[in-house]
């Protein structure tokens, strides 16, 4: 059996590990959970009743689809980058939907105190 140096073994192990990592990355599934849960959160927060929030939910959905299409074509980096757009749109939709509710509550509270002052000058 041919003598294998210690350096040779280490080099071989490094090559195998690098190949394994590269293979793992190449076949890693696209993680859309962040985007889809963001979209769901926006819908739960009432995005359907707020036009601006509805628009961003729609954009997020389209971006998730675009990311999936890029992933299928093997353009993993572009797919992941496209998903960041979807996450940003979903996050904005949540804020817009909640903001609308908060605005209504603030208006209601101000109306309530105005009425109380009017009834009790």
């Amino acid at each position, binding site marked *: 059996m041919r003598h294998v140096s210690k350096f040779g073994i280490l080099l071989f192990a490094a090559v195998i590990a690098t190949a394994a990592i590269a293979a793992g990355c190449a076949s890693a599934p696209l993680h859309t959970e962040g985007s889809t849960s963001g979209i769901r959160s926006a819908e739960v927060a009432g995005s359907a009743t707020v036009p601006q929030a509805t628009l*961003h939910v729609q954009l997020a959905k389209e971006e998730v689809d675009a990311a999936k299409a890029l992933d299928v074509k093997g353009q993993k*980096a*572009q797919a992941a*980058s*496209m998903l*960041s*757009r979807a996450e*940003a*749109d979903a*996050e*904005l939709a949540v*804020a*817009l939907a*909640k*903001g609308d509710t*908060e*605005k209504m*509550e*603030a208006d209601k*509270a*101000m109306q*309530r*105190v105005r009425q*109380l*002052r009017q009834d*009790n000058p």
Partner: protein
Amino acid sequence: MKPMQLSILVAIVAIAALFAGCATVTPNELINARAAYEQASNSPGAPLVPAEIHKAHDALDSAEQSFAKDSDSYKTKDLAYVAERKAELAQALGVSAVDNAAKAKADADFAAKQAQIVTKTKSDLAATQSELSAALVALAAKEEARGIVITLSGGVLFETAKWDLLPSAQTKLDQVVAALLAGPKRNIIVEGNTDSQGSESYNQGLSERRAASVRDYLVAHGLPADRIQSMGKGKDNPIADNASPEGRANNRRVEIIIQPGAHASN
């Protein structure tokens, strides 16, 4: 133009076109992101959401750095797109913070106004009770199990065997009205009583009519009709001996009973 000059001109135009083609073009995403950040950082809510403004700034910074390295890459465009959304997010959260602050202030104002109303109501009630107490003392009212009883002498209110109120009765009844209007809303019973002279049916009728006259006066002067009822007791409830003229005079009376917190039945 000589061929030589033409060649030089063509060469210059070609070089200029080449440079123009190579010039860096800022992607729309980045232009939008810069504008959105500018707007968010100058919005009224910005001071209330410094962390979100900072995140938007970092996102824009990442996009600018990517643009410096590779102006037309998908990465630059995506980072710029995200930066625009982060700026819009910061602005939306700033608006929410302003709304929440307005709501908190409105709630605090509401609570303060309510407390002020409660204090004023208590003060008004105390003043009313004080006025009522003074008025009831002036009317020699007595507190009994059936309520506060104001007794008005029949001689002050009516002529003998009559039920029309004497002019002199009005002064006394006006004092009663003032006291009842000043006090809390209570149900009132007006009871007419006679001495023992005359038949039972006569005295019963007379006591009923006299009680009704007093009730009508009270209602005519502002007391709610649905809270006052009148009834005649005839000669059945003497408070003094009918054998003497003084005793009979005391028995001829109208009693106004202010019931303790009950509702009128008619």
